[in-house]
């Protein structure tokens, strides 16, 4: 089964090509069959590969498939090669399977859209790029997939391009992530220059043998890779693009901007974990970035009005948890949280999409309400997803993964109680904003009438994901055993917090957030309003609502100076040099053409004079 690995990215790519070429002449049904079918085949193949991998693990826990040499310049010979170990296996299976469910959902959600086949072409291309990124054997191929998913993200955010705001959001996402990508590219140059290869496994071995722990090269390389990860995974300070990315269609938000692409940074760090282990300061920075991001995004999420923006901030916050886990060395906990997050966050977006479509594309949660009985499927699936996100103890998957991260943060040699406390505050916030959302949207009075009920293609994927959001957490122990073949074990510091105590604390934090949301938004709705009405509350609300003023700050610090410089340099100083050259040439032309008088005697005089001067030069000089 394993030799079929190349088909997993190849089939979605073929689907994207087919849809791109023939799509405009296709009927919707054909486009849906090709678009969804290619992902279905890919998902089935990856499930079979997973089964084969688990029953008969390849030697050394990894399988490499080399297709061909991509570039051959001297010692630089990156290949198109795929590397399958437990880490990429988990990522690939989750990505293809969640993608398949979301494609099924999109087949109904996008019905009637004039860009129907274009949408599926982009989505297929996205899956192909994402799988390439995950399976890449060398960092160059990984970078290809990395940029491919960035491109698809841009295309899909601006999918409804007639509205300039969507195009702007797409450009913002593209440019902000490009900042991180530049850092990552420099990191790649640095690694190749010093270690002479880009094959990830060779690179890790070489780094381990050539660089001592804490060496300047390891720190620089890890920091640059972290820059790329921060941009792609929307972490501090490059997180501003993700909330605006919600301008795209809801399935896009579910697939790209929640479940898969934004976790690419987590994957990159886990994949190059050796480098980060060699650079303890950078690894600690990963944890701090994660902790700070999860808190900031949590506060912002609690103030948003747009249902999708709440979910976007919660995505940023949850990826913050993954970074926290990576930073304290709990590699498999981060990947475990990636998996459960992929399930419940995709589910939340799908359920939110059902609500949005049922209410004539209404996004404002204060104009929703009482949908519990109107849209039961959306309600129950959203409730399950929300509980998993907030971490309802013992039942939901999110609890197990987040609990593991919190416990690791408290007990890691690299972590500490400060990180644990930040994570714990994050749990309260998560629970608060999740149930705020649920109470406002599904409880209370009916604010807007329901106009459209979802069909099977939208409810079934949501139900499957709801199922996975619950059972996904029960596989914690075999999951950790599987990942132990690819990632190092978590190093526990002695004398830390016991697992039961950490779990109990997480459960209590969940309950605190739930009660706060219940009291402020259901029991006593005037409380939240009055808190937001007094001046200090209003200021704080505005501050958090605008993402801690980050957009404002970037506008002042980066965008305005650039725009000012551009407008000040409207005349283009550098270009005036070339304009001057052209002007001088034109002047010479005018001078010379003035001698073309058409008067024969003048010509003869010039010739005679010129001959005299030439002869004089020849004779006396």
């Amino acid at each position: 089964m394993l030799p079929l690995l190349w088909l997993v990215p190849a089939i979605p790519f073929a689907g994207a090509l087919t849809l791109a070429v023939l799509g405009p002449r296709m009927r919707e049904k054909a486009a849906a069959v090709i678009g969804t079918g290619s992902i279905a085949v890919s998902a089935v193949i990856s499930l079979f590969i997973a089964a084969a991998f688990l029953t008969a693990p390849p030697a050394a826990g990894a399988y490499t498939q080399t297709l061909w040499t991509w570039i051959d310049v001297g010692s630089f010979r990156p290949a198109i090669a795929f590397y399958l170990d437990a880490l990429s296996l988990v990522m690939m299976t989750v990505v293809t399977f969640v993608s398949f469910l979301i494609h099924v959902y999109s087949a109904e959600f996008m019905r009637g859209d004039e860009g129907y086949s274009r949408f599926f072409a982009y989505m297929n291309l996205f899956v192909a790029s994402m799988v390439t990124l995950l399976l890449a054997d060398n960092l160059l191929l990984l970078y290809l997939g990395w940029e491919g998913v960035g491109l698809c993200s841009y295309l899909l955010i601006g999918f409804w391009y007639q509205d300039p705001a969507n195009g702007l959001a797409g450009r913002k996402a593209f440019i902000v992530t490009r900042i991180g990508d530049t850092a990552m590219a420099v990191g790649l140059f640095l690694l190749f220059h010093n270690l002479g290869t880009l094959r990830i496994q060779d690179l890790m071995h070489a780094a381990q043998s050539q660089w001592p722990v804490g060496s300047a090269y390891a720190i620089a390389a890890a920091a640059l890779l972290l820059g790329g990860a921060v941009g792609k995974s929307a972490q501090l300070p490059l997180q501003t693009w993700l909330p605006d990315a919600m301008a795209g269609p809801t399935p896009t938000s579910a697939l790209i901007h929640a479940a898969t692409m934004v976790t690419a940074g987590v994957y990159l760090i886990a994949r190059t974990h050796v480098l980060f282990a060699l650079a303890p300061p950078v690894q600690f920075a990963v944890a701090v970035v994660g902790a700070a991001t999860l808190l900031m995004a949590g506060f912002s999420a609690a103030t948003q009005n747009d249902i999708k923006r709440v979910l976007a901030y919660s995505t940023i916050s949850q990826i913050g948890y993954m970074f926290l886990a990576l930073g304290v060395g709990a590699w498999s906990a981060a990947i475990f949280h990636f998996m459960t997050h992929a399930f419940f966050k995709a589910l939340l977006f799908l359920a939110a999409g059902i609500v949005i479509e049922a209410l004539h594309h209404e996004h404002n949660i204060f104009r929703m309400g009482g949908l519990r009985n109107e849209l039961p499927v959306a309600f129950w699936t959203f409730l399950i997803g929300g509980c998993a996100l907030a971490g309802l103890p013992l039942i939901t998957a999110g609890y197990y993964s987040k609990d593991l991260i919190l416990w690791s943060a408290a007990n890691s040699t690299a972590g500490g109680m400060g990180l644990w406390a930040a994570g714990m505050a994050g749990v309260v916030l998560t629970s608060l904003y999740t149930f705020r959302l649920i109470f406002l949207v599904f409880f209370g009075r009916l604010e807007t009438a329901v106009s459209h009920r979802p069909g099977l293609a939208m409810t079934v994927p949501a139900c499957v994901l709801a199922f996975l959001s619950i059972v996904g957490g029960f596989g914690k122990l075999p999951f950790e055993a599987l990942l132990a073949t690819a990632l190092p074990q978590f190093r526990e510091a002695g004398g830390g917090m016991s697992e039961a105590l950490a779990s109990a604390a997480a459960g209590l934090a969940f309950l605190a957030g739930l009660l706060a949301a219940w009291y402020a938004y259901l029991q006593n709705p005037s409380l939240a309003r009055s808190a937001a009405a007094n001046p200090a509350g209003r200021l704080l609300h505005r501050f958090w609502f605008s993402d801690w003023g980050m957009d404002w700050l970037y506008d002042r610090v980066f965008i305005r100076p650039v725009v000012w410089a551009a407008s000040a340099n409207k005349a283009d100083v550098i270009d005036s040099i070339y304009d001057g050259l052209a002007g001088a040439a034109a002047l010479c032309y005018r001078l010379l053409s003035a001698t073309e008088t058409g008067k024969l005697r003048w010509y003869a005089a010039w010739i005679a004079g010129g001959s005299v001067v030439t002869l004089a030069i020849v004779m006396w000089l």
Partner: protein
Amino acid sequence: MFPIREGFLLSGVLFTLGVIGVLVRRNLLFVLMSIEVMLNAAGLAFVAAGARWGQPDGQVVFLFILAMAAAEVSVGLALVLELYHQYKSLDTDAISRMRG
């Protein structure tokens, strides 16, 4: 010995007169005649140099110049006729349509 100094002086004077004629005269026929004077001045210089060193080359070159001058005159006169046809004038300043 042949007085080459005087020969060259005469040739130079003739050539200068020819140049002045070309520059000063506005009638095309006179311009052609001035060119003829310049050619003969050059020929005279060749003949003088050939006589000075007792070589026949100078006179050979003069024959070439004669042949060239005959060709030039025939072409030149044809052009003059054609121009007169077009402009009813032989004034070179009037025929100045080829200015840049």
